[in-house]
């Protein structure tokens, strides 16, 4: 499997370290909501398909990367530095006006 690091270019997966699910949102550090912390630490959606993941190019430039990888095919559809702005969500398609009868 190759991961295309935004700085180094395509590199073998052995240069990278998997750092976990990229869908989690850390609760406010001051939060005492045990359910929220439990969900953050343990709950995983385990998607069969495109999954957001965090990787680190530990054997290269050491950048942390937000990667979208298909868990069924290992195809990687996007890679960006976690410091870079996430891409804007696609705009909803405009509905075609109905033709008058």
């Amino acid at each position, binding site marked *: 499997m190759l991961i295309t690091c935004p*700085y180094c270019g395509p590199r073998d997966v052995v240069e990278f370290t998997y750092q976990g699910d990229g869908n989690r949102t850390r609760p406010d550090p001051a939060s005492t909501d045990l359910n929220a912390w439990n969900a953050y630490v343990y709950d995983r959606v385990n998607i069969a398909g495109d999954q957001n993941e965090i990787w680190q190019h530990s054997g290269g430039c050491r950048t942390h990367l937000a990667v979208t990888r298909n868990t069924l095919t290992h195809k990687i559809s996007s890679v960006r530095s976690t410091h870079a702005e996430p891409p804007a969500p696609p705009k909803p398609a405009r509905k075609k006006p109905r033709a008058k009868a």
Partner: protein
Amino acid sequence: MAETLSPLDTVLRAGRYANTAAKIGVTLSEVSPGSIVQVAAWPDTEAKVLEGIAKTTKLKLGGEPGAGAVSGNVAAFGIAPGRFLVISEDEGLADRLLGAIPATVGSVTDLSHGRTAIRIEGEKAEWLLAKFFAVDFSKAKFPVGRGVSTNHHDVFAQIQRRTENCFEVYVFRSFARSFWKALCHGAEENGYEVR
């Protein structure tokens, strides 16, 4: 400055080895630069860090990944976003860089005693490196001055092309002896010289 002790002292023996009947295509040696310094910019200060490096070393680095330059006894190349490795044969480079790059612009870390520099030169230098690293070292993709951060198993390495047939590899000194032995084994089939 304290005298640098080489981790290769017990294994580096000058001479010709292995397939000496072949035309020796690669020469291995240890380089002992006076200074190896890492310079890192803050998120919005990369241009100022490059100015500081240029002011101190007269080397002008491009902003693109891995861009580097070699001139006289100094060399520098990009190792990560906003991070650069600067090498000089002279001691005291870190202090000179600190004069040009204050803490508000970036951080300067003296790695001189933490890295071992190994020089690989000769017609087969590219061939030998390609045995160890999954990186394209061809002249078109990896011209003189360019650098790269990569690893061979757990041995992290930063590599710069110094001339057409000469590369310098910077490895953690604790891995240097093991990596040196691996390099020698890799070069055996073609024969190699140690200087």
